């Protein structure tokens, strides 16, 4: 037994001294548990800060109420203006709001048309424009939006109808009318009259014209069927196999990061074997090695990403060729950023094992918060801000723009710019790291 105990102690000693194993055993799962906890466990906020373009063309009180409700909700970040060609913020109109969504500046738009509601009409019409680049996100947006609208408008309908009833019958007679109707229902259907009046199950003209809460609950059930959302998908209608088109970029990036990190970490292997020494005693400088590694990894990244998209084309009929040039530009930019990431890991790690362990941790974290696995709006707002600092976020954005929206060069230019900026900054850091580190 003592022998077994000593062997167990040996295992623990080796385990604790292997920082990679320790981090993969505890740190990576801990981070993932926290992230998933935020999303599914309710530890953080529910969906928040979703960009929603909004245009109110109606003069009705209902439209104003919807607008003010949306203005105060945390679920949506309401956008009512856009930057025009002259660089000025101007209010949306029915054309520009659709363009705004088409360009991917917001996932969806809600328009309250001029004829959304009138005193003579019975019902509410809303227009909903959307870009389902993320199916899960879109379903949640629609659900949340309907919920938000539904909880607000019934009471307004109710107050409106009450007002019309009072105008027609007079206040006293209107109340008497409602009471009579309730008594009849009670008589023939065996329901308590006071309950009908109190809970607002029968609502026409019941309550007062302020639309208080006692009536809205029952009213919501009644009116939920008469609010009409005219939905129009603006982008991606013709995309083949939308689900795979949406997801391929995220997974391609994750695996690219793994292979580039391994390649960057191979610098340690070469150093340990003495190959780096041999190479550097030939007519080769350290910058030659860094440049060769960098360009090799970019080319490897381009090949890997292209191969993945080609598989997508061959097996899932994803259209990669109709906008191929722009796809290629995003692929190169994403590879450049990934390579910089792999190199900076190598530059600041002390050993190959450390580079691999740190790489695994960062790749999984970046993929999770960058949107490769689930929409970022699930995450708390501070993590959503951090996610915009990850190359996974921008790469995925680029792939979606190109494959989903068929974006042209000028539209992807900001994304390409961000990716190349990330690559440049990280490269400067890695060169500094290589100079002060001891890998060379």
């Amino acid at each position, binding site marked *: 037994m003592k022998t077994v105990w000593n062997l167990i102690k040996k295992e623990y000693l080796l385990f604790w001294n292997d920082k990679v194993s320790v981090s993969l055993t505890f740190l990576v799962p801990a981070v993932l548990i926290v992230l998933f906890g935020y999303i599914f466990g309710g530890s953080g906020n529910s969906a928040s800060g979703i960009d929603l373009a909004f245009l109110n063309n109606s003069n009705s009180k209902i439209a104003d109420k919807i607008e003010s409700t949306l203005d105060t909700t945390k679920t949506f970040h309401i956008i009512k203006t856009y930057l025009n060609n002259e660089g000025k913020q101007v209010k949306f109109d029915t054309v520009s709001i659709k363009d705004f969504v088409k360009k991917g500046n917001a996932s969806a738009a809600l328009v309250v048309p001029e004829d959304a509601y009138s005193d003579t009409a019975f019902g509410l019409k809303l227009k909903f424009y959307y870009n389902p680049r993320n199916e899960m996100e879109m379903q949640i947006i629609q659900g949340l939006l309907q919920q938000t609208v539904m909880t607000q408008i019934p009471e307004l309908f109710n107050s409106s109808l009450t007002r019309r009833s009072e105008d027609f019958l007079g206040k006293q007679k209107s109340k008497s009318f409602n009471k009579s109707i309730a008594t009849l229902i009670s008589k023939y259907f065996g329901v308590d009259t006071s309950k009908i009046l109190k809970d607002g199950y029968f609502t026409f003209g019941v309550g007062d014209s302020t639309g208080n809460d006692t009536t809205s609950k029952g009213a919501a059930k009644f009116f939920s069927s008469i609010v009409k959302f005219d939905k129009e998908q603006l982008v991606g209608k013709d995309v083949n196999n939308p689900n795979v088109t949406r997801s391929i970029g995220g997974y391609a990036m994750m695996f690219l990061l793994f292979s580039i990190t391994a390649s960057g970490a191979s610098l340690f292997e070469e150093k*340990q*074997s*003495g*190959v780096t*020494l*041999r*190479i*550097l*005693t*030939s*007519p*080769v*400088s*350290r910058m030659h090695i860094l440049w060769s590694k960098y360009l090799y990894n970019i080319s490897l990244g381009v090949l890997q990403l292209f191969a993945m998209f080609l598989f997508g084309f061959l097996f899932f009929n994803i259209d990669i060729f109709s906008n191929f040039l722009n796809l290629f530009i995003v692929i190169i930019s994403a590879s450049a950023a990934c390579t910089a990431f792999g190199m900076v890991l190598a530059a600041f790690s002390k050993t190959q094992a450390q580079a691999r362990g740190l790489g695994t941790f960062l790749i999984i974290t970046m993929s999770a918060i960058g949107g490769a696995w689930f929409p970022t709006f699930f995450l708390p707002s501070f993590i959503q801000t951090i996610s915009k600092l990850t190359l996974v976020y921008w790469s995925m954005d680029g792939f979606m723009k190109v494959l989903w929206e068929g974006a042209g060069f000028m539209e992807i230019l900001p994304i390409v710019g961000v990716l190349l900026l990330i690559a440049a900054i990280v490269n400067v850091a890695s060169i500094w790291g290589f100079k002060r580190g001891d890998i060379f």
Partner: protein
Amino acid sequence: MISIQNITKKFPSVTALDDVSLEIKEKEFFGLLGPNGAGKSTLMNLLAGYLDSDSGEILIDGKIISSNNLEVKKKIGLVPQSLALYEEITAQENMEIFGSLFGLEKSSLRYAIAEKLNMVGLFDRKKDKVQTFSGGMKRRLNLAASILHDPQIVLCDEPTVGIDPQSRNAIFDYLEKLNEAGKTIIYTTHYMEEAERLCSRVAIIDFGHIISMGTMQQLIDSLEFKQTITIDKNYETERHTSLFKSFGLLTDHENNYELMPTDGLKLSSFFTAMEESGISYSSINIKKPSLESLFLNLTGRSLRD
């Protein structure tokens, strides 16, 4: 001609070389002898242009060698202490990679590869992956890859570590042939036998300082004693060791004691004392002083400490 002038190289925790100066002549087989951590490899890495010194300079034919002077690096071939090879590819592919870095054209590279692989007896295995080679074969390939570009100076940093005597002798033969062919060879080791066999001149280095330098004979002649005496470890009492110490510097080895006699010791008086103490003559050996003895005499430590 290699001129090392007042070289100092410091690392965060240690000064590896401290104001080292020496000159190595063309076509010389020069040995750098010292224990682990003495500064030998640092000096080799500076000579090869892998590291840059903190102060001082190294001139090769009047040109300063540094990590950025790529032209001068072409004159040098470093045989690293480690097996600096890609194990997962073939011997020929390794040679092609390293040869191409020296700018060898395809045809001359092919010729050079065949010549060097033949020289180290690996031509028939050129298509085999390095990972299938024995330790000795890898060492030979390690050497061949370093001289592919026909360098004027060959730096050998303990090139025989961990191999069998047969492969070691083979490497010695190749190096001697290279030296005969006019190459300057600088060889580091902590094995005195290697330095004694190969080197015409030796510098002994310890703690970053050159503590002695000269031909083998000059170094041996510089010793106060002309013989060393070994005594088998059959006599380990304090009385015996005190007696031994009265005749000179005594060092304790695994199987015997080694005595470096004080100047002017008469062997007759030593043997008389041994006889009186009951020590058998068969336990005593008289030897010519070795580099090991020299190092011990200079530093009070063994080369392998």
